[in-house]
């Protein structure tokens, strides 16, 4: 009896693993085809360029406030924490180094990407999902037009352009607010802050931040576009796609953060 139950459990596990493997392979294949379709569609610039500008305006301008707000708070908190940890133990100019390096290398790119995973990722998945379940994507196809060039490329390119730019602005805002906080709470002078920041700074740091944000931009745009584009089952499906897109993009960012950091530190 126990042996039969054990055999059944093994069979169930095999089935689950088998289904999961097939499902994952299916997703990987469809995702790869979507990217291939996008590369193929790049020649149709007349279609996607105007829509890309429109999307970039929506996504960039609309996200600016929240990105700068979060970056400002991140800079302020980093500054306060640094002051708390370092006062009396390390020279004060180290605060400049910690604030600038942590904002440029980690907090700026990661926090911006996580915010945008919620803001842009949810928007893309919900828009495309709704278009899928209301047959708007089928309608485009039935008119002999490519949904990839009309819908996906503009969204992805807009994200790839706007997210690194927002990250740079977030880095700058974090530095500025971090300095102002350190000045008011620790009495750090601008000269000390600048000395500390320059002491550890390498131009590669900015490239590092830019490369990271580019990778995150791909995650924030491609994953929600894929999930939204493949939505099924009506309004419930749109809801499911939206939450899945945000979760998947956020997890993707954290995974990429670890991988890209490791790779870039080797280069550095």
């Amino acid at each position, binding site marked *: 009896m126990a042996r039969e139950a054990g055999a059944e459990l093994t069979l169930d596990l095999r089935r689950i693993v088998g289904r999961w493997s097939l499902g994952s392979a299916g997703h990987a294949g469809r995702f790869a085809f979507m990217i291939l379709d996008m590369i193929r569609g790049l020649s149709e610039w007349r279609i996607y360029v105007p829509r890309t500008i429109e999307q970039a305006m929506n996504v960039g301008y609309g996200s600016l406030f929240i990105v700068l707000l979060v970056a400002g708070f991140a800079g302020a908190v980093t500054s306060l924490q640094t002051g708390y940890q370092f006062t009396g133990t390390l020279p004060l100019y180290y605060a400049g180094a910690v604030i600038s390096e942590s904002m440029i290398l980690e907090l700026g790119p990661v926090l911006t990407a996580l915010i945008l995973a919620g803001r842009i990722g949810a928007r893309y998945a919900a828009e495309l999902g709704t278009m899928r379940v209301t047959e708007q994507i*089928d309608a485009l*196809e*039935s*008119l002999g*037009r490519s949904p990839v060039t009309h819908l996906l490329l503009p969204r992805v390119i807009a994200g790839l352009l706007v997210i690194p730019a927002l990250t740079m602005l977030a880095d700058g805002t974090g530095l500025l607010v971090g300095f102002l906080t350190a000045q008011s709470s620790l009495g750090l002078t601008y000269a000390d802050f600048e000395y500390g920041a320059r002491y550890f700074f390498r131009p590669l740091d900015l490239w590092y931040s830019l490369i990271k944000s580019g990778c995150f931009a791909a995650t924030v745009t491609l994953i929600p576009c894929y999930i939204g584009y493949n939505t099924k089952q009506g309004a419930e499906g749109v809801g499911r796609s939206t939450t899945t897109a945000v979760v998947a993009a956020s997890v993707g960012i954290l995974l990429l953060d670890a991988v890209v950091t490791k790779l870039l530190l080797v280069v550095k």
Partner: protein
Amino acid sequence: MIELQNVSKRFGSNAVLDGVTLTVHDGETVALMGPSGVGKTVTIKLINGLLRPDSGDVVVDGLHVPRLKRTELQELRTRIGYVFQYGALFDSMTVEENIRLGITREDEARDGAYSAARALECLRLVNLAPEVASKYPAELSGGMKKRVGIARAIAGKPKYLLYDEPTSGLDPVNADVIDALIERLQQELGVTAVVVSHDVRGSFRVADRLALLWQAKIRAVGTPEEILASRDSAVQQFLERDLEMSLIQAEAKGGS
């Protein structure tokens, strides 16, 4: 000509179409009738390549649709107008922009003056006022959305028109308006059309021939007279059920 040759299509374990064969001749209007969920929409999605059959062949204009490459399929679709059940209008675009999207020839689509004039002409063809052009789909009634959907489908001057439940969700008066519109467009444009519907009265009005899709197969095909005279139990059952619905609707209308 549109030909479905022994077409089968399954979704999981559910066999939606099983060996369906149907021919629609040039200039002819065929109404594909059947109860809800029987596979009528799947059939017309197979015709314009939105779905691929599991087996069998679909031939449109001499082209084997399942075997077409992406670019060939896109080119074929420019000759097929498709009217979606719920309009499928792009809600972020105005009515005019929606219709202009239906102009499938690139040179015509890029010509702003031509496409604006064509959008207005299509609005006139579907009996809508030019003022509607600047409205968004959310500002339109159900019947108007259907008409804009038809206007978008005819904007590219297609050779074939596929209507997916053009009167579903409409009250009898609006359904009559749409049926009359389909009839008139067939006469004016002379296209080959497939009208998918579960509305028997409308189907008899617009079609040259009717086909009944029943339990994944084409159960009967013929002229309206031939279908009415059919002794097939499925045909009789389907016609009687629709007659009952018509009576209920008429009673409700009389009572209100």
